[in-house]
């Protein structure tokens, strides 16, 4: 007869516990051992910097850059070679200049039929008293359109680099503009108040008289831009934004360039296809003369003024 055990006794034996543990019914640790939840391993900032510092120190020890003789020699040699190279290049270029035709000699190759026609029949053909304006805006109008686009693409690149969004702009303008600038400098403000109207009027005069006197879109636009920058410097960006903000800037710029493009396209195709040109040359010396020169000068002037001011504003605070 086999010996029967009581269930209670059996549950106390080691084998019962063992089999129960194997079948997974009970984890012997739960309830018997104190446990903590695992936390993610964190590295403190101090140890990171310390480690980086150590690494840098090791690198410095092994590759002793400061006391490496060959390297210092190389750097010295590099500087000397660079200076020598530049001096030699300058010397050769100057030497070449001495071989070029002498300036002011009537028999020079550049005194040819091209310059002759610009000077002799420029007034009659373009209606512009200022030969330079006539040449860059009528004879070689395509180059000048390209040049205006150089200014345009330069502003685009500066915008890509420096433009920030509205929110940071406001925070920044509060913080940055008030530091370093003497706020409401009365001398500057009075001078600006007095000068800016004259500067702007002078700029407009130079633009409008581009076909009659030295000047034109590029120089007049630079004067306008300088006037705007002076105003913004004296009174701050906010008052300037009342009449020249991003919207005005965009409209002025795109319409100026598009109008120039349209005039250019009309002029090129009419000329190339030998069709009649409907823009009259006018009486030389009057404001409304010079054919396409005056409208192009206005467009170029607007574009240059916008570019000047946009550069200033972008470098100053990252937005218009």
């Amino acid at each position, binding site marked *: 007869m086999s010996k029967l055990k009581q269930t209670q006794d059996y549950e106390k034996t080691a084998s019962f516990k063992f089999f129960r543990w194997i079948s997974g019914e009970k984890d012997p640790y739960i309830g018997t051992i104190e446990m903590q939840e695992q936390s993610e391993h964190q590295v403190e900032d101090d140890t990171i910097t310390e480690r980086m510092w150590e690494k840098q120190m090791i690198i410095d020890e092994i590759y002793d850059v400061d006391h490496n003789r060959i390297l210092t020699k190389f750097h010295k040699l590099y500087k000397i070679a660079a200076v020598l190279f530049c001096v030699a290049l300058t010397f*050769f*270029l100057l*030497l*070449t200049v001495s*071989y*070029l*035709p002498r300036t002011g000699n009537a028999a*020079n*190759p*550049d*005194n*040819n*039929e*091209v*310059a002759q*026609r*610009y000077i002799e*029949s420029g007034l009659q*053909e373009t209606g512009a008293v200022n030969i330079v304006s006539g040449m860059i805006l*009528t*004879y*070689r*109008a*395509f*180059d000048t*359109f*390209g*040049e205006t*686009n*150089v200014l*345009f*693409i*330069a502003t*685009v*690149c500066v*915008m*890509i*680099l420096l*433009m920030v*969004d509205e929110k940071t702009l406001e925070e920044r303008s509060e913080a940055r503009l008030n530091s370093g600038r003497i706020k409401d400098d009365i001398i500057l403000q009075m001078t600006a108040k007095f000068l800016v109207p004259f500067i702007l009027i002078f700029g407009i005069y130079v633009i409008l008289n581009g076909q009659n006197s030295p000047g034109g879109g590029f120089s007049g636009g630079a004067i306008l831009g300088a006037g705007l920058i002076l105003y913004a410097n004296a009174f701050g960006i906010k008052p300037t934004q009342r009449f020249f903000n991003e919207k005005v800037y*965009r409209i002025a*710029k*795109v319409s100026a*360039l*598009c109008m120039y*493009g349209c005039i*250019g*396209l009309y*002029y*090129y*195709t*009419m*000329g*190339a*296809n*030998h069709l009649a*040109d409907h823009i009259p040359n006018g009486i030389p010396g009057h404001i409304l003369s010079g054919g396409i020169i005056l409208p192009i000068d206005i467009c170029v002037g607007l574009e240059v003024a916008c570019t000047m001011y946009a550069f200033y504003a972008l470098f100053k605070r990252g937005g218009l």
Partner: protein
Amino acid sequence: MEFVQNFPAFSIMLCLFAGIVSSVLKKNAAKWLNTILIIVVGAMSVAVLYYTASMNTVYVYQMGRFSAPWGNELRIGCLEAGTALFFCIIMLLSLLGGRTHLEEDVESSRHNLYYVLINLLLSSLLALVYTNDLFTAYVFVEINTIAACGLIMVRQNGRTIEAAIRYMIMSLLGSGMLLLGICMLYDLTGHLLMSNIHEQVLSIVAEGTYKVPLLVAIAIISVGLAIKSALFPFHAWLPDAYGYSTVSSAAILSSLVSKGYIFLLIKIIYRVLGFEVFHDSGIINVFFIFGLCGMIFGSFSAIRENDIKRMISFSSVAQIGYIYMGFGLGTKEAMIASIYHIFAHAVCKSLLFIASSGLTDVSNRSRHFVDLTGAAYRNKIAGVGFTVGALSMVGIPLFPGFISKLLFAQASILNHGKMLPALIVLAISTILNAIYFLKTVIRIYIPVENGRNLTITFRQQRLFGVTLLLFIVFSLALGSCSQPIVDLIRQGLESEIISSIPNTIYQLAQSLMI
């Protein structure tokens, strides 16, 4: 005058207009405007190409009321129209292939500005291809340079800004030298129009006056354009500029921007200086040596590189070396080979850049070689694209790289003095190309058990896949139907030489009438 003849001027002006308008458009509108613009310009170039090739003519388009030596002028032949069409196709495909990356790399407020840059870049490329006036060329070189800087830094992190500054300094140095050279040429000849300068240069050479300044002018212009197109000793800016910018920018920079300058150099060699004058100046020997050095050292740098994009960039140095070696051989056959290589390299390099971006996408964005193991299985179409590009670069038959190598080899046989170095370096360079490109192909086709990296199928990236397919088809077409293209290049080059004579007589008659 037929209406088709207006198309080159229209396409340049359209690009400029699109650039101006894009600056105020919203992101998507600018994107679509750009796509439509490139297609329209491409279609116009097809029409012009058909017109010039079927009539076998070269015509001069006067920009404005005043004829050539006084006003600006375009000059259009089948080579110019073909190059314009080719540039349009590559630009469209590069932009389509990199579109998803552009979304990630560039802030959304700057997308329209990116397309402004692209439109103006296209206009400058077209103007460089079509112009017959050295100063117009310089103005558009400026636009090209600034646009390229913008393309590099539009993805804003430290490395791209550094690369852009480096590129800007080197490129402006090149522009400055080009401008100096143009000034000197103007001082010697009194003209800015290519055909008139050519005529004057011939008389200067015949008289024997101004020998030194003419040589210096040729040298300065050549070095300036060589810096801008990254010939071997001037290539330090290249790997960073191509390697870290966003994919479309990298593809466009490597395959179009540098090629635009090379095309301008070809025009200067043929139309401004005349091939004989250039040949006798001795500059071609310098080009030959630097070209050979570039072929070898560019490949060595690429072999040492562990970053796939920088490797592809260094391979550009080697390929630019091929093109300049072709100039250096100094025969017409070699020039044809160089122009064909411009096309072949442009297709394959942009294909490689786009495909490598697909491979890095499925490797945790890592560009390291080890992480790319098996990437071709995770992104099948990118793997196939990369393989096609790599095989073409190595020079396997059926791909365009083979044809250009064959043409270079044939051309070098005609030149007795330079045959041996050219052939030997060509062979070495082919082996070096094979080492680094096939190493990469084998690496991406090693099967690997890797659950962590995601797999991208064709359906998840339809636009990318279709673009790569188009690239593959285009490069296969270029490689397998090379003869008509070579004939077209030959026809174009011949017209570059012959037609300058009647043109000048015509202008002489006109100036006498006045």
